[in-house]
């Protein structure tokens, strides 16, 4: 996606969506939820694309970020926007415990991370004094009024999560185009080739894990203040891992905007169409769609859109 298309898409998200749907809390809320998935999908794709680490444990970062932010605001009076950042930092710190898993590769890494995610869920359930245990945390402070804007509304929440996801995509862009990004991109398929020319592969993987955890934690923290409620089964639910993976792969996890496009498409079509068609088990259709996408276009949805766009422009010029 070139910069013009990116800026147009951004302008539409910042101006078009609020102007067209600002009064429709249901749809705005739905798009905000899709952006939550998009945020995790970007963080997941960053780790997968740059460094070649397939994680099944992003729910852990999401949950830790959510609990960190909720506890800091409820018990220590930390302002919500500061707590969102601290939620990200909390998730980054939790990722340090996962570093031994970086010695593993491929499916072994994925499974080890999945196991770590389960440990954090158990901790959240057992540490009742801090997390409220299985009963969870109620009345988590909403997003505040800031500079005269009430971010506690559906539209306010949408703007906040849009800011978070935009910042994440921009960060991803700058990491990817740096020399670190080049090395990480090369590590995806040829780690030995990078190590042998001096790339400190393990160190770079650690940095990517910490960055990815921070991003996911910040999104989790946002979600806690957006829905004002947390309990371990929800905060550490496998949904926070599976949905973003499906979205990222569907959109094209090796591209910058693929995970966002994938998340918006998958989440909205699932909630607005498939759920009405098949109230029970509607996610089965997503599975079929993902399989079809992998067979037809393994690089995801974005290359299909780009090809269509190029062909249309080609016909216009002809």
């Amino acid at each position, binding site marked *: 996606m070139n910069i013009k298309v990116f800026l147009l898409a951004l302008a539409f998200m910042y101006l078009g969506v609020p102007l067209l749907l600002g009064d429709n809390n249901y749809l705005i809320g739905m798009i905000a939820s899709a952006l939550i998935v998009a945020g995790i999908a970007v963080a997941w794709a960053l780790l997968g694309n740059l460094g070649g680490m397939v994680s099944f444990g992003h729910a852990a970062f999401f949950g830790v970020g959510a609990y960190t932010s909720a506890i800091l605001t409820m018990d220590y009076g930390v302002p919500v926007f500061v707590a969102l950042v601290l939620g990200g930092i909390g998730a980054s710190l939790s990722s340090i415990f996962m570093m031994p898993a970086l010695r593993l590769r491929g499916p072994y890494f994925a499974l080890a991370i999945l196991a770590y995610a389960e440990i954090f869920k158990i901790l959240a359930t057992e540490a009742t004094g801090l997390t409220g245990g299985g009963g969870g945390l109620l009345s988590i402070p909403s997003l505040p009024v800031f500079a005269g804007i009430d971010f506690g509304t559906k539209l306010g929440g949408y703007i906040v999560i849009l800011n978070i996801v935009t910042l994440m995509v921009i960060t991803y862009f700058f990491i990817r185009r740096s020399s670190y990004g*080049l090395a990480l991109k090369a590590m995806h*398929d040829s780690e030995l080739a990078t190590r*042998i*020319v001096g790339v400190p592969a393990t160190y770079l993987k650690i940095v990517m894990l910490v960055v990815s955890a921070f991003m996911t934690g910040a999104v989790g923290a946002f979600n806690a203040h957006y829905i004002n409620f947390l309990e371990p089964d929800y905060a550490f639910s496998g949904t926070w891992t599976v949905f973003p993976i499906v979205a990222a792969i569907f959109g094209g996890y090796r591209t910058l905007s693929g995970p966002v496009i994938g998340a918006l498409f998958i989440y909205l079509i699932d909630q607005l169409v498939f759920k009405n068609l098949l109230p029970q088990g509607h996610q089965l259709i997503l599975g079929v769609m993902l399989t079809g996408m992998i067979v037809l276009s393994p690089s995801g949805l974005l290359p299909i859109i780009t090809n269509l766009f190029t062909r249309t422009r080609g016909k216009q010029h002809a």
Partner: protein
Amino acid sequence: MLKVKDLCVSFGGVRALQNVSFEVQQHEVLGLVGPNGAGKTTSFNVLSGIVKPTAGEVTYNGHDILKSSMHQRVTHGIGRTFQIPQPMHELTVRENLIVSQRFGRPDGKVKHQRIDEILKSVNLLHKAESDAATGLALTERKALEVAKALATEPTLLMLDEVLAGLETTSKKQFMETLKEIRKQYSLSMIVIEHDIETIMKLCDRVVVFNFGKVIADGDPEETFRNPEVVRSYTGEVHA
């Protein structure tokens, strides 16, 4: 410069290297020869940090490099190539060298002029923007392998069968390129090679491996007259 002393490597019950010792002096080209499975590539793998030895010492310019990680050894000045080229997939030829310079040089600086110079010296300048994994022929992939190592600005370059698989003309041209590179960058080299003619033309000295042991070390011409070497390396016995 490089001192390898009593190096031992075991893979389970297999003793891949047994008390291997050799040295490489500054600006010297050392050939490692011997039959398949003799321990040549294992020696490279130990020197570059891929394999941990079970015993022995390796010093490079006085540093105990066995304590260094793989990427630290590169910044100490040790570069290597692989018999099967290992391009960095998804990057162009130039990007391969950018990453090598950025991370392989001690100061981490990327010098684009130097990259062009290296690409020119290995005849790859015209392919600089090609995809490293799919856009190169075998000779070019081998050249990229050397170029990547050169981009880290090594003082010791280890070449693992870099001429293997090339047809005669390409092999001759490539050998001339290696000679030029040696001169241009004042390199010491260790060369693993099966082709005796190449070894004779390129190397100042050879070390012969057999069954994980060094069985000879000396001037190439004299060494290849050594009956034990002939027996182990070629399978022939000279009267």
